[in-house]
């Protein structure tokens, strides 16, 4: 059984705050490449980074990350 893919709302929340990827990277103390990988779903963050994101974007983790809807 393949694990469910995880999607996230990071890009939407970031743009709603008017931040660039570099702004978010600076606040999270990661690289822009990491922010891009997170937003495009190429990389699922560790729990500590997920909590930092949650705190920074003022959203609970389950609203930031959610399983991709499965097609029938």
């Amino acid at each position, binding site marked *: 059984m393949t694990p469910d893919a995880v999607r996230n709302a990071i890009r939407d929340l970031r743009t709603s705050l008017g931040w660039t990827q*570099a702004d978010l990277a*600076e606040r999270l103390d990661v*690289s822009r*490449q*990491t922010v891009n*990988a997170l937003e495009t779903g190429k990389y699922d963050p560790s729990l500590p980074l997920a909590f930092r994101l949650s705190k920074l974007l003022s959203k609970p983790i389950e609203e930031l990350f959610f399983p991709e809807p499965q097609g029938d």
Partner: protein
Amino acid sequence: MTPVPSRERRVNRTMQTFLTTTLLITVIALLVRGLKVRFPSDFLNGMELGLLAALPVGMGVLLYRAYRQLDEYGQRLQERAAGLAFLLSMVATMVGYWVQTLAGVQIPLWTVYVFGLLVYSVSVQLQKRAG
């Protein structure tokens, strides 16, 4: 112009130090070697050996520092690339050994290093694309 996040600036600084230090030690070692050829002495011989021993140690310390400064995604990319490069280099070494034994040809040792570094670079780039 988009500001570069501080994490990236720190890594870039360490990599610049790495390149400068490596170049500096190499140039000094070459100078000492040149001097040794003209004026052979035990002192210069020891100095050359010391510098050549310092080179991998210095490179190792600085590369480790750069690795520690990477964030979790950067570290994961490097770890996977290094693991793949190591494994494929081992395979290439074994295949190279067989070819040398069976075909009776000489394959220089440096080809293993070049092969390993190529695999490493390609692997990092592919992972950046694929995630």
